[in-house]
């Protein structure tokens, strides 16, 4: 390089410059730290879970794990050979080999078989509660934002909704237990779980729906009203469609929360184990709504709280967590695709 340039625009060290550099690095490192945490958690689950979910041989997917109900696992030694068999297989084995009748086997609950009932239960819980939450939440948001006279009452309602978001999920669980399970006598049922979970995500849905309604320009409403539309016609044809992408974004957050919560369903909807699938053994339609289900997060909790922990229980836990993440990712991706389609249709 040549001699240092001395023009008027040369950079000079100053406090502002040092702050600029410092601030940039604080922001940058914070972001990377978050990324690192996320990657560690996901990586851990994916790494350990994939051993359970994927196999080395032909279908490469552990089909029984995804399609069967949980069973106890029996581990024993037979003729110098270590065997791990699920409940049914173990009994069949004992019939086949009568001499093995008194073999000493260690048993581990739910460590064999699969998690199919939990997958079904979680999907049912998510779909039902999101339908309830979106119906109630969007209606409330439309009322608050489009119809209600803005004043103290509405402010108080908004404050109450925000406070609701801060209530711990176990309190929602107890609330559901008290109101739906006991008082309304719905028992531990899908219906009770749906409403409990829906109430839990309502604040998120209402707040986000209101924000996306607010983001729709006032001109669309005025233009429509000036053509002789009623308020509801205006909202239905010319406000809600444009707010839908934002509402869907909020519901994606809601889905992740609903699917993952354990506390609200442990008192209201979840069974530790249930041998029937939700569509089996129904005598009437209403039976469907008044049955408990197994659910992924609760299954993780149940298996994880078994003592002692060992390699057999760990397999199920990580496998379940992995499957759970995949399901949430799948539902969320569907919503995101839907949202992006809507966004492209209505651009302004």
């Amino acid at each position, binding site marked *: 390089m040549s001699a240092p340039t001395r023009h008027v625009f040369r950079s000079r060290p100053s406090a502002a410059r040092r702050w600029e550099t410092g601030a940039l690095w604080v922001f940058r490192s914070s972001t990377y730290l978050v990324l690192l945490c996320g990657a560690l958690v996901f990586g851990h689950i994916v790494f350990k879970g994939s051993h359970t979910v994927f196999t080395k041989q032909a279908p490469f997917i552990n089909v029984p794990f995804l399609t069967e109900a949980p069973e106890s696992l029996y581990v024993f030694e037979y003729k110098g050979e270590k065997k791990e068999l699920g409940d049914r297989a173990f009994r069949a084995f004992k019939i086949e080999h009568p001499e093995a009748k008194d073999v000493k086997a260690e048993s581990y609950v739910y460590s064999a078989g699969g998690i199919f009932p939990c997958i079904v239960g979680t999907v049912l819980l998510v779909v039902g509660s999101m339908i309830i939450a979106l119906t109630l939440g969007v209606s409330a948001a439309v009322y608050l934002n489009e119809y209600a*006279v*803005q004043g103290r009452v509405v402010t108080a309602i908004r404050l109450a909704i925000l406070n609701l978001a801060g209530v711990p999920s176990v309190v929602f669980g107890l609330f559901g237990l008290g109101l739906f399970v006991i008082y309304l006598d719905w028992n531990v049922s899908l219906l009770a779980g749906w409403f409990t979970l829906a109430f839990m995500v309502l604040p998120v849905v209402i707040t986000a729906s209101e924000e996306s309604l607010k983001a729709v*320009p006032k*001109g*669309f*409403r*005025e*233009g*429509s*009203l*000036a*053509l*002789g*539309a*009623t308020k509801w*016609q205006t909202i239905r*044809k*010319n406000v809600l469609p*444009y707010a839908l992408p934002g509402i869907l974004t909020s519901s994606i957050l809601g889905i992740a929360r609903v699917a993952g919560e354990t506390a609200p369903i442990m008192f209201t909807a979840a069974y530790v184990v249930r041998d029937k699938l939700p569509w089996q053994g129904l005598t009437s339609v209403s039976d469907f709504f008044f049955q408990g289900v197994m659910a992924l997060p609760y299954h993780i909790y149940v298996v994880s709280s078994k003592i002692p922990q060992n390699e057999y229980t760990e397999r199920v836990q990580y496998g379940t967590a992995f499957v759970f993440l995949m399901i949430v990712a799948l539902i969320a991706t569907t919503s995101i695709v839907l949202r992006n389609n809507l966004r492209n249709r*209505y*651009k*302004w």
Partner: protein
Amino acid sequence: MVTAPMTALTTSAFAMDIGTSSATPPTARPVSTVPTPSVTAPTGTPASAGPILIDIEHVDFFYGPSQALHDINLKIEEKKVTAFIGPSGCGKSTLLRCLNRMNDLIDGTRVAKGQIKIRGVDIYERSVDVIELRKRVGMVFQKSNPFPKSIYENVTYGLRLQGRSNKADLDAVVEKSLRGAALWDEVKDRLHTSGLGLSGGQQQRLCIARAIAVEPEVILMDEPCSALDPIATVKVEELIQELRTRFTIVIVTHNMQQAARCSDKTAFFYMGKLIEYADTRAIFMNPANAQTEAYVSGRFG
């Protein structure tokens, strides 16, 4: 023709419309004190013999506690272009939005005193259905607001609200309205593309097409050209000249040349009061009021 909107706005009152209102004397200058304005009007043709369509009588209007309009008296003639001019905040847009009750949308607004009659019906009366009113009194906004739908859907929006869904019927109205808004030739090949893909001036004409598609009697225009470039402005002004044969037009404008170019009558507002109302030529060439003269000659406002 569609006469459905007629019914709800108290049909009986409409029945007595033109007969009585044309009997009332043509508009005068309600506030100005200088006499014989029409004599000095350079046109020599007062052109104010038309029947009165909108009759604003002693209107006081409030936004919450603050009064925006003070005792407005104004008679707007049928099939004429009436311009409201005045500096910002003078109440001209407020008055315009009273005419189709768009102010109802703002919490805490009220017409405290007086009446606004359209064809003899007080539009703030309890029995008036505001939906029917707005079907008859269309509006074009300052910021063009085509809906993020196709051009076709934009124009048919008002018709579909009325339950008209016959394809051939809608097609005909779309063509008629777009021709009426001098937009047909520019968009006829892309009726099903988004209205937001149009230029600013085209968007505003699309909004006009949307407004005339429902065949209103009155079109209110709230500074329709303030966001447009001069060429687009000229097109909209030419359009106003064509529309005046079919509709009664009330236009709010900041642009005094625009008022002078395209209106028959002009009302000058200041501080929520109607200062002067007369034939446009009289207002600009020979204003009766000193404030009006100061404003139109650019000395304030």
